[in-house]
C-alpha cells in the first residue's frame, strides 16, 4: 500500500470538485427551466468514486446506476458527452437514446449504467470473468446503493464472484436511504459489510466521505483484485444530502441527522483537510475550482448546442445488421 501523496489527494479532490460543480450547474439549470431531465443527486457521495478513480486504469471496467453521474465523471467519461446524453442529444454517449440512466462509454471503461436496482452486479461479475479468462489484468468496479442489497440479483452476484474469485470490487454506496426508506426500515442486518463477508470474500466498511480512508480502501481492494486475490465488498458509508431525485421531498429524513451530514459534507470537509492536514494552499484550490467551473460550463454549452438525435435513430441499434423490424 502506497501512502497517499498530495498530488493524488489533489487529483481526487479535483474530481470531487468537478462532480459537485456539475451537479450545482445542473440544479441551477433545472431550477431555471434551462434544462429538463430526470436527475438523481450525487451530492455527498463525491469522494467515493473520486478516490476509486484514482486507483483505476482507463481500461478497467465500471458499472453504475441511475445515481451514477459521479461514477461516470470519475471513470473519465468525457463531460461533454455525458452532459449531452443527459440532455438527450445526438452527441451524447448513447446519441441521446439512453438518457441519464443509461450512460455507456466503453472508451473510458464505463460499461453499463442501469436503472434497475441490483441489475448491474451480475453484469459486473461477467466483466470481471472476462478479465479472469483473458488474463488481461483489468479490474471491474460496480457501484450500487445500500437499498440494492435487498434484491436477489445482488446476492447471486456476490456469491458467484466469491466462488469464482474474479477481479471485481463491489462498491456499496451506503447513503442510508433507498428512495424514501431508511436503512433500519428495510433490513435488520446490523452491517452490510458483515453480512456480505459471510459469502467468503473480503468485506469492510469504510468512511466513504474521507479521501484518505476511501483511497486506502479502494487501493487495497483494487490491488487485491488485480493480483488475483479475489473480490472485495466495500460498504462506503456516506449520506444522501437531498431527496431521491430532483424535485422529490425530504420530509421523511431526520432533519437533525441531515443537518449534521450537511455540516460534514465531503467537498467542504476534504477541502478543510487538504488545507489543514496536507498544507495545500487556498490559492491552489481556488485556481483549480475556477478551472473546473469553466470546464463544466463549456461542456454544458456543448451539450445544449448539440442537436437531438435524428428520426432515423429510432430504428438503429436494435440489432447488429437488420433493420429494426424483426421480419
Amino acid at each position, binding site marked *: 500500500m502506497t501512502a497517499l501523496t498530495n498530488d493524488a489527494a489533489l487529483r481526487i479532490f479535483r474530481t470531487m470538485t468537478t462532480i459537485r460543480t456539475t451537479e450545482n450547474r445542473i440544479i441551477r439549470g433545472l431550477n431555471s427551466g434551462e434544462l429538463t431531465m430526470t436527475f438523481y443527486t450525487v451530492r455527498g457521495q463525491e469522494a467515493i468514486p473520486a478516490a476509486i478513480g484514482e486507483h483505476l486504469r482507463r481500461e478497467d471496467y465500471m458499472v453504475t446506476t441511475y445515481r451514477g453521474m459521479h461514477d461516470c465523471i470519475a471513470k473519465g467519461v468525457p463531460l461533454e458527452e455525458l452532459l449531452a446524453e443527459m440532455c438527450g442529444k445526438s452527441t451524447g454517449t448513447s446519441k*441521446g437514446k439512453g*438518457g441519464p440512466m443509461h450512460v455507456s462509454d466503453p472508451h473510458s471503461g464505463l460499461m453499463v449504467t442501469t436503472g*434497475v436496482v441490483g441489475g448491474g452486479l451480475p453484469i459486473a461479475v461477467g466483466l470481471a470473468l472476462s478479465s479472469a479468462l483473458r488474463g488481461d489484468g483489468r479490474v471491474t468496479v460496480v457501484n450500487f446503493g445500500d437499498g440494492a442489497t435487498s*434484491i436477489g440479483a445482488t446476492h447471486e452476484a456476490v456469491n458467484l464472484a466469491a466462488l469464482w474469485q474474479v477481479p471485481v470490487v463491489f462498491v456499496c454506496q451506503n447513503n442510508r436511504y433507498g428512495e*424514501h*426508506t431508511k436503512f433500519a426500515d428495510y433490513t435488520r442486518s446490523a452491517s452490510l459489510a458483515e453480512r456480505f463477508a459471510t459469502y467468503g470474500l473480503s468485506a469492510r466498511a469504510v468512511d466513504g466521505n474521507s479521501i484518505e480512508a476511501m483511497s486506502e480502501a479502494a487501493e487495497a481492494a483494487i490491488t487485491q483484485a488485480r493480483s488475483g486475490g479475489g473480490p472485495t465488498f466495500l460498504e462506503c458509508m456516506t449520506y444522501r444530502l437531498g431527496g431521491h431525485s430532483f424535485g422529490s*421531498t425530504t420530509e421523511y429524513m431526520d432533519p437533525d441527522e441531515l443537518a449534521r451530514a450537511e455540516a460534514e459534507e465531503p467537498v467542504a470537509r476534504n477541502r478543510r483537510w487538504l488545507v489543514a492536514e496536507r498544507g495545500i494552499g487556498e490559492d491552489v484550490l481556488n485556481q483549480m475550482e475556477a478551472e473546473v467551473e469553466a470546464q463544466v460550463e463549456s461542456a454544458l454549452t456543448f451539450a445544449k448546442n448539440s442537436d437531438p438525435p435524428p428520426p432515423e435513430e*429510432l430504428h438503429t441499434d436494435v440489432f447488429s445488421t437488420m433493420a429494426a423490424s424483426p421480419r
Partner: protein
Amino acid sequence: MTPQQQANAAVADPVCTLSDAVNQAIDIAMEEDSEVFCLGEDIEDPIGGVMKGTKGLSTKYGRDRVRNTPISEQAIVGAAIGASLVGMRPIAEVMLMDFFAVAMDQVANHAAKLRYMSGGRTNVPITIRTSVGGGRQFGAQHSQSLEGWMMQTPGLKVVMPSTPRDAKGLLYTCIFDDDPCIHMEALTLLFTRGPVPAGRYAIPLGVADVKRSGDDVTLVTWGWQVPEALAAAEQLESEGISTEVIDLRTLVPLDIDAVLQSAERTKRVLIVHAATQFAGPGAEIAAVVSHELFGELEKPVERMGSVYSPIPYAAELETLHYPERLRIAEAVRRLA
C-alpha cells in the same frame, strides 16, 4: 354503470386525479374488509407511494396494513401470494411495470398457476398495482407496457384503466376478485383529472367501454392511448370521419364481443396500443377480428403499436416511438 349512467353521473361527480381515484378504491376496500392490506416500496406515509396511490392510508389504517418493504419485488409479490392463499386480499405495489421482470417467477409461475396446480384447492386473490411509464422520457427500463407478457400467461387478469372513474371501479373489483389481477396505472394519466363518483362502486372486468360512438371506423385501444385516440377522433369528426373509440379497459378478460359488434358495423378496425406492435396484444385482437369477420370487412385490420425497439430517451424520438394523436388520425384516414 352503463356508459349512459356514467355520462349522467359525470355532471355531478367530484373531480379528482386517477391517482386519487386509486387511493379511494383502496381506502374503501380497506375500510370494508380488514383482510385487505397493502405492501410495497415506499407506500407508507409521508410518501404514501411514489405515485401517491396509498397516501394517507398508513396513517389511517396503521403500518401493519400499509407496509413498506425492502427493494425486493420477488418477496413483495411472493408475500402477497402467501397471504392471499389463506384468504387475505393483499394489494402489492410494484413501482414500475418494468420491474415485473424481476418478479416474473412469482407472477407467472406462482400467482397465475396456483389455482390450477392445486386443482382449485387454493387460489390467489391478489392485486398487483403498477405504474406504466411511457411518454415521460424515463428511458428504456422505465417505460415499458408489458401487458402482452401478462396476457400470454394463463391465469392472470389484466386491467388498464384510462380514466379516474374507471380506475376506481376497476381497482375495487380487482381487490375483491378471487384471481390475481394486474392493475396497470399509466404515468401520463395518473395526475390527469376526471369525475369520480363518491363512495363504493365496482366496474366488472371484461367489459369494454365505448368512450366515443362512431360509424366509420372502430378504434380499439386502452390505457394512455385512449386520450390520444379520443383527440384523434375529435379532429377527424371535423373532417367528417366518425370514429368509434372502444376502451377495452381489461385485456384479460378480453371483451372481444364489443369489438366485433362495432366492427360488424364499421367494417374498418384500427387497434392502437403503447405495447410493442410486433407480437403485441393487438395481434390477438387483429387475428380474432380478421377471423370472425372474414369476408365482411372493407379493409384489413390495422394495428398501431410502439416501434420494434427499446424505448428511446430523447423526447424527439420517444414521440415517434409510441402511437400519438396525429399518426393515429392519419391511420384512421387511410382506413376510412
